């Protein structure tokens, strides 16, 4: 009896692993092939039949990709825009969320409902009027000009998540600080924010990754070569270098690597933020 059920359990586990490994292989294969292509010397890029492991791996494509066409500059552009966006979004959204969670005032419900409405507006619907707005504000082809638009489009989701988190902080803590004479700002800055570090990290990561990868808006408003962000640089890389896929993929790996590192380090935060956002509905 016991041996039979144990053997059965082992078979089930083995089958489980088999299926998982197969799925992982299929999902990972395109990435493996991308990295492998980026490591092949240029002469081999048109090889046929294709090989998964380069016989003669070289980092030459990485050196060329980084040096060519301001690629280091694009990297820096993306990093600074994403960082500025993250700081501004988390600050403004956490203040708004704190206001919705902790203060009573006329119109609060309407303001919050209006922000939640923003979750349902498809961003592409707004690209034409946003372009005209950027033109009116003189923010076309400006790298800092990307920031307010990235902040504005990510505020609703961030505020929504943070408000739910602030609601869970016991009000007694606020009241204790209030008795000590702490003003609203101190209660927000010294109490609510330190207690919400996990939620701030989660939303911050989302905003950072969203801005780092943003492509369509930057493609629409950025013209000057020196103002390009990484996604645009990569997309246009292809056009400039024809079939130099090794270069394109070396550039892609450089762009994807920070995302992968952030994701692997913070995957718990990402999963919790993702599911709390999606399961609320």
């Amino acid at each position: 009896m016991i041996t039979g059920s144990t053997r059965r359990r082992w078979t089930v586990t083995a089958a489980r692993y088999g299926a998982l490994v197969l799925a992982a292989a299929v999902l990972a294969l395109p990435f493996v092939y991308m990295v492998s292509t980026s490591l092949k010397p240029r002469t081999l890029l048109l090889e046929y039949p294709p090989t998964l492991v380069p016989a003669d791996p070289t980092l030459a494509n990485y050196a060329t990709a980084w040096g060519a066409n301001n690629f280091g500059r694009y990297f820096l552009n993306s990093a600074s825009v994403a960082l500025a966006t993250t700081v501004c979004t988390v600050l403004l959204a956490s203040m708004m969320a704190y206001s919705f969670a902790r203060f009573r005032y006329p119109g609060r419900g309407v303001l919050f409902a209006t922000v939640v409405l923003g979750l349902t507006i498809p961003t592409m619907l707004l690209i034409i009027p946003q372009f005209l707005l950027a033109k009116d504000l003189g923010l076309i082809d400006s790298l800092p000009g990307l920031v307010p638009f990235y902040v504005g489009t990510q505020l609703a989701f961030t505020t929504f998540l943070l408000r739910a988190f602030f609601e869970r902080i016991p009000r007694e803590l606020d009241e204790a600080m209030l008795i000590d004479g702490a003003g609203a700002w101190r209660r927000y800055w010294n109490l609510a924010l330190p207690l919400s570090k996990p939620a701030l990290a989660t939303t911050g990561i989302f905003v950072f990754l969203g801005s780092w990868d943003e492509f369509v808006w930057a493609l629409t408003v950025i013209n000057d070569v020196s103002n390009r962000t990484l996604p645009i640089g990569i997309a246009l890389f292809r056009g400039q270098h024809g079939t130099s896929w090794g270069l394109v993929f070396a550039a892609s790996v450089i762009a994807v690597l920070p995302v992968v590192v952030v994701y692997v380090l913070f995957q718990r935060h990402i999963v919790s933020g993702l599911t709390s956002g999606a399961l609320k509905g």
Partner: protein
Amino acid sequence: MTTTTTPSRPPTVAPGRAVGRRRTRGAPGSAARRRAAVAGYAFALPGFAVYALIMLYPAVQALLISLRDYAITPGAPSPWVGLENYARALEDPVLLRSFVNAGFYMVATVPAQVVIGLLLAVLLDAKLPGRTLFRVLFYLPVVTSWVVVSLLFQYLFATDRGVVNWLLVDVTGLFDGDVAWLGERWPALVAISVLGIWKGVGWSMIIFLAALTGVPRELHEAAALDGAGAMRRFRYVSLPFIRGTLSTVLILLVIGSFNVFISVLLMTGGGPLDQTQVPLTYMYRQAFTFLDFGYGSAISFLLTLVVLALAALQYGITRRKASEVDG
């Protein structure tokens, strides 16, 4: 002694007077309440101003622009044309084709993402060494930028010396000759759909896994003791528990599939000859290639309407199903 409470006291004791008034006259804590209201507005205002400028104002503008023959040149008139842009859209064969293409993408990608995502979630819903590793791996395509994966799949689906053709023709012999994947309408849509599935399964997997974790272990154990196999346990224990999540995921995936954009833009650009346009690539082309902002906005609104209608329809269906189950 009554002087201490009369309003006409010398200003030297003003602080004491303020306290006294709060205690005796106004409703208790009304000053505190007013302070809270001021703080509430002050905290909400900066963020809300940015939100209103970047989201709300453009949302209203989008509607107004769609009712105009919009001229981008400064000073040029942009006359109101009523619903003319919408009337034009309804008779535009390319726009119709773009919706059919998006419909194909939906049918090809949504069921596959749900089924594969659910399967992976069920496989991972167990105490398993290496579980986190698999989860991270499956989710990796989701966090990778659309730009990078679109270029990658364009390379994989290349006609000449592409890996997919090599597998189909040389390795397995399923096809006699190379397929021009990105050069024709339906093969291109298949390639774009494969990318959509590959990039999306990790997302539905994560959502389903979170929902499955909420299913009480005791229920599974009780069902197992009663002799229910894995399939039956899934059907009668897990599935009822995650029904709500399932319908949420379905609605979000359908909405997402009609908003497919970057992969099409980069893999085919809507070509050849507008054969693979989807609503958003066509809108983008009208707006930023032909500078026809009025028509582009009208297309955006039509797309939003179609997506809302689909979501409402789905919501209605799942609600009815749920009430059938309950009663």
